[in-house]
């Protein structure tokens, strides 16, 4: 993500391209910073801020992968699954990693230069 201002279309496009769960909040505030406040923007912002992180991700999922199978019951169950994933996220955050903690080998160099 860059610091470039987003208009409303870009905002929704970004959502549709699958922004990460924590990127969502950042994007929302970026939009708020970058444009003159308008009534419906304020409503969008307020609506987003009133939703829990799990609910935001449910909405994001629904927006990206909308399907007739996504009934209210499905979305309710989905929320509980996402809440569990967010608990994992909180657990990882609480671990106390420091800057020097590497994820281990992320890329393997090959001798093959094609």
């Amino acid at each position, binding site marked *: 993500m860059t610091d470039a201002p987003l208009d409303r279309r870009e905002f929704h496009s970004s959502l549709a391209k699958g922004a990460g*769960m924590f990127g969502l909040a950042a994007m929302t505030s970026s939009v708020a910073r970058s444009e003159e406040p308008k009534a419906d923007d304020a409503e969008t912002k307020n609506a987003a801020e009133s939703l829990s992180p799990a609910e935001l991700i449910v909405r994001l999922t629904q927006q990206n992968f909308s399907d007739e199978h996504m009934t209210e019951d499905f979305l309710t169950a989905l929320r509980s*699954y996402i809440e569990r994933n967010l608990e994992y996220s909180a657990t990882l955050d609480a671990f106390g*990693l420091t800057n020097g903690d590497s*994820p281990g080998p992320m890329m393997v160099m090959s001798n093959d230069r094609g």
Partner: protein
Amino acid sequence: MSVAPEMAFASIVTLGKELRAGTFTSVELTEFFLHRLETIGKEYNAVVTVTADLAREQAKLADRELAEGTDRGPLHGIPYGAKDLLNTVGYPTTWGADSHREQQIDNDALTVIKLRQAGAVLTAKLAMVAFAGGFGYSGPDSSFTGPCLNPWSKGHWAGGSSTGPGTAVGAGLCPFAIGTETSGSIISPAASCGVAGLRPTFGRVSRTGAMTLSWTLDKIGPLCHTAEDCGLVLNAIAGFDADDPSTISEDYHYPPAKTLEPPFRLAKIAGAVDHVLPEVKENFLASLDILKSVAVGGDIPEVSLPEFPYDAVVNTILHAESSAALQEVVLEQSIWELPDPRMHLGAYSTMFVSARDYINALRIRAKFQRALDDLFAEYDALITPTFAMTSYPSDRPFRDYTAGKGLVHLNLRQPTNGAGLPAISIPNGFGEHNLPTGLQFIGSRYEENRLLTIAEYYQSQTEWHLRTPELA
């Protein structure tokens, strides 16, 4: 010449001796097992595709080579089955999913190639939980082939996700099978079906040509009648592969040049029998009594794993990697063709795991890998019951069966799979409904041969692996 019925449950070693003694040919042995796969295999929902034409061709070649004096080793002429996520040219590779029933992939998995080079005969593509259970699943009915039934009790499940390999070996449909494990999928069916299942160290066996569920967790390994057979199969399929960067350059040899001699440095995991079925506890304690005689000082001390958020780490890694590896299933919406609603929820709930969480999970995993390396360096094997219970009924969700029973599986599958450590499960008795219980040995990275030696010692002192089910 004909193949005696008891050969259905014979080890690779025994079959190899009989084959070379001329008791039967590979063609005869192959026909014997093809018949069992076509009849019993389909009745138990263990088989996706019987590869009869290929098997007959490979068996004829095996016989011809032996007659000409070419012996490719212990697997020469021995039939086997492969979990249906290993690519096989000319046959569908379904990944256990209805949506992929017609999938044809035009290259063989490296494991299939290596087994062909070792002279083994591929007789069947075997059933599995859809997508190797990567989206989660709520019960045994999780594959388009239906719930894979347990050889010891047709009303029970085979264990997953390598369901078909478990039942196929346990029911004597093939002398060995190839399964895969991301988080429990070899060990579980091995214990449930009363066979030996070896999960090799991560990187020991190339995954080229196998369905990817998780690049940093997937392993390929054998299910057999004995620990010794597991070593023979691993010897054939292990090795470096430039196409799979996870593979290690270190060679693997079985039998090992230098055998581990007792006394063994053994330990049991603290709390191993605190919340398990009474028969699981009884069988585990009896197993310890046998193993104490070869343990250092005649003692098997209790140890605890270091404290880490294993579940959060391994599940986050699995969610992030599987949602990318299998994204087509969601993007093309074939996920909805899967019968289990748990799979739909599992798939969609992991589509937005954050990059930061994934990287942090990898960072914490690097820490617990080191901590577990330190712990395991002190022992040849840590021992636990493989599961707290025997297998589940085949006709209802898992939760309906376990609710209120107070059973707690020691959660070793996450730390040991997360750290890429090898493990073997072998049968150590029976419990409810005459279903097998399992004994698990977990070891240091690259130390499969230590585990095999200890498991072989246990099997030399017991006869659980020689029991055969009365198939309904």
